[in-house]
């Protein structure tokens, strides 16, 4: 099954992170991708997002508007995502514990 792992965190944490802390994040993501491979989970795609200040949002209700900024001004923001092919959700939930960010949402994709 395909799943997305949506990664949320307060962007201020990354901005304030020193080199050692950033190296810890990078090592954790490498550990995740390595462990995923060992567990038979394929990382199809993955991206880290630029800061939400660079987001543009199109909103459609009565009419369509375009604004600068993200969908919601929350403390935590979507900072990245993985698309993975995993045998089951339990395997993936164990793996995402390796990721260093504070909040991880796992969602199944519609296509098989």
């Amino acid at each position: 099954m395909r799943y997305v792992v949506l990664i949320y965190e307060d962007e201020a944490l990354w901005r304030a992170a020193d080199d050692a802390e950033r190296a810890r994040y990078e090592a954790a993501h490498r550990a995740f991708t390595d462990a995923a491979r060992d567990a038979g989970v394929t990382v199809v795609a993955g991206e880290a997002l630029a800061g939400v200040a660079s987001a543009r949002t199109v909103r459609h209700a009565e009419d369509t508007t375009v604004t600068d900024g993200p969908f919601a001004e929350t403390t935590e923001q979507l900072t990245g995502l993985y698309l993975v092919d995993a045998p089951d959700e339990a395997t993936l939930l164990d793996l995402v514990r390796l990721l260093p960010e504070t909040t991880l949402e796992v969602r199944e994709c519609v296509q098989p």
Partner: protein
Amino acid sequence: MTTPTTHLLLLRGDPDGTFDLDEVFAAHDRFTAACAEQGHEILGGEELGPHTAARLLRATPEGDVTVSDGPYAETAEQIGGYYLVRTADPDALLRLAAPLIEAEGHGTAELRPVAVHDPTPGAGAPA
């Protein structure tokens, strides 16, 4: 000519909304065709299953991890899908995306450039 960069297009809609699914699929077909014609390279994209089936891991400052059912936020609009697109003209891409949410009658499309960490790829870069 601007160098193409990768952007994430996040589509959010009302999970309880009613709309013509064939029209929504047709809008996505027109979007992908227009992207191909206008040089926006679609690298990937997925439609997500129901947000109610989402699982959430949350780490506390103390390092404890909790697992719960449900999405990150119980908002009226939920992420329904995304595209990953390499483009030299994000504004033009955003204009092409507007019909995707118009087809559902209600929703938002958020476009974010991906981060480029130099020299080491950081979060989200598959090995």
